[in-house]
């Protein structure tokens, strides 16, 4: 990880118009991604992780969705202001993606070879044979046994874990600057998850790829990420170095989240602490801290205004009135 920022997300806002009202799925998300960094985005379902990811590469289905504000600066160019043909050159090439279900990106009717070489030819300008050689090399790196044979098979001939390996091979084949992985192991069993995470870590370190890893698992974040953003109701409530956040979580939500995960290394007996109440509804959310109904430390102001972001010496930023200098009447 270096000082060089390769992706800067600034005050990103993505809303969906629905029959029930406006869903503020992402509502003012900001973070920097440095060269070679692995950044985790963690949060419970519906907190806006996937919409953040899709907004970055400008792939929000519209309607009903719309990116209503913010910037996504990739090497000084705003991806949100880019014409469609230019962003297509970046997607899958400079910025590539993998999803929880590999079949969202794989065509079931095409051989792996066709699907892999197409992208390589398109983005790297290689000839057909060279592209195939490159694809085989990537499959081999991704731990697919007998890649020369398996490359001619169809997606359904691979197991879930193997398919995710194919996706990793495919997404890294153009040597992207950034890999966005949205819950890449959430559908896999733990032993397979360990294999895939190991592979991702190894390959991205070797190729110097920066990673945005989206997951609901604090365990996965702890093992994989240099930095992390904790999302709640479309906002980043806490951001910082992974070690610092786990050692001393500042936001009451982060504190509650970490305490509510049962841990393998802690014998049972002590009661698990849980966060009371239900996750928020992000439809027509008023100006308030969305966590206040579940927060033990809620104050009057939390109900009236979204917290200003406080910064700490260790580079942490936390959106909570507990830490705010700004005092309101």
């Amino acid at each position, binding site marked *: 990880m270096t000082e060089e920022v390769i992706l800067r997300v600034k005050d990103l806002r993505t809303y969906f118009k629905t029959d029930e009202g406006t869903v503020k799925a992402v509502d003012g998300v900001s973070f920097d991604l440095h060269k070679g960094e692995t950044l985790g985005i963690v949060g419970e379902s519906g907190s806006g992780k996937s919409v953040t990811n899709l907004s970055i590469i400008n792939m929000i289905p519209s309607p009903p969705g719309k990116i209503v504000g913010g910037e996504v600066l990739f090497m000084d160019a705003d991806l949100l202001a880019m014409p469609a043909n230019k962003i297509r050159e970046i997607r899958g090439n400079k910025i590539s993606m993998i999803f929880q279900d590999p079949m969202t990106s794989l065509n079931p009717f095409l051989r792996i070879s066709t699907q892999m070489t197409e992208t390589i030819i398109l983005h790297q300008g290689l000839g057909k044979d060279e592209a195939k050689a490159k694809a085989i090399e990537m499959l081999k790196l991704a731990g697919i046994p007998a890649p020369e044979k398996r490359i001619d098979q169809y997606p359904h001939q691979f*197991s879930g874990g193997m398919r995710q390996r194919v996706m990793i091979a495919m997404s890294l084949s153009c040597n992207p600057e950034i890999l966005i992985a949205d819950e890449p192991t959430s559908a896999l069993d*733990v032993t397979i998850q360990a294999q895939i995470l190991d592979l991702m870590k190894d390959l991205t370190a070797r190729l110097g790829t920066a990673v945005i890893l989206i997951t609901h698992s*604090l365990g996965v974040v702890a*093992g994989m990420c240099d930095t992390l953003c904790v999302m709640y109701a479309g906002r980043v409530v806490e951001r910082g170095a992974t*070690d610092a956040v786990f*050692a001393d979580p500042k936001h009451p939500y982060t504190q509650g989240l*970490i305490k509510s995960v049962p841990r393998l290394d802690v014998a*049972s007996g002590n009661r698990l602490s*849980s966060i009371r109440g239900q996750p928020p509804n992000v439809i027509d959310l008023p100006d308030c801290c969305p966590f206040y109904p579940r927060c033990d430390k809620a104050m009057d102001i939390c109900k009236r205004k979204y917290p200003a972001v406080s910064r700490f010496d260790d580079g942490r930023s936390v959106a909570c009135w507990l830490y705010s200098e700004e005092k309101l009447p």
Partner: protein
Amino acid sequence: MSDKEVLLDVKGLKMHFPAGSRSLLGGQKRFIYAVDGVDFQIRRGETLGLVGESGCGKSTTARAIAQLYKPTAGEVILEGEDLSKLKAQPLIAARKNMQMVFQDPYASLNPRMTSGDIIAEPLRIYQKRGILSMTKTETEERVEMLMERVGLSRFFKNRYPHEFSGGQRQRIGIARALALRPALMLCDEPVSALDVSIQAQILNLFKDLQDEFGLTYLFIAHDLAVIQYISTRVAVMYLGIIAEISGSADLYRKPLHPYTQALLSAAPIPDPAIERTRKRIILTGDVPSPDKVRTGCYFYDRCSKRMDKCAKSVPRLKEVEPDHQVACYLYHDPE
């Protein structure tokens, strides 16, 4: 194991599903050996955690115990009575003492019934069959008591499942399972679909209900930390058999079976300082499909410690330390 009374005794349980014939021209019949000889006991008031990767036969085990499937072989003895031998009528009566909670509360709740009716349904079924006698008011009162007890306001009893969040729907499923005051609850991944903050609420609810009603649980999950939190004893399943079973603290402190060791080492711990220094046993390959008759250890293909004798006969579960059984030739010799 404590000397409390055995509530459920599962002996040699097998569930083989027919899987069509080998070719169009007939030939050998094929089977899915989903559960292939499982033995365990659960004592009254305890929680047996059943853990293993997807497809290893956890749900099938629970369903075969509940007699939702007719087991291919084996005995399921609940309070001294072998359920697998009972005729339809006495089975229905016996089943009253054993209820299930499922993973997906949405799929398991009838969307056209109110939460109150869903919770009352088991009571009404048993009333209709003349096994249970309760007045209308008693039924109402029981439903309201149950709702409050699982953390739902009784004022929600006229609402439909879609009006509740995932965690609340799971509470409805739990109230329904409690309605008949069963001794045993078979919980099939009841927290796997829930977010962590809600998962913790529901796990604590299960613990509180156990204390209050003296319930006994068979609790299925694929998350080892969840299993550790909830269980008194733990059974690790692999490909339709039990690889290891012991008291919970023991299993996590000193896992014996190479598969248990690999599972534990693969499960992430939410602590970056620990994760950085942990050594992982990375298993190679995928879980094989349970469609073969096995003549050696079921874990042989993926085991890093396999020996010649492991391919020659199937290791049986054997007690190698007090209340710690393992099916592995590292700890005992072939018979």
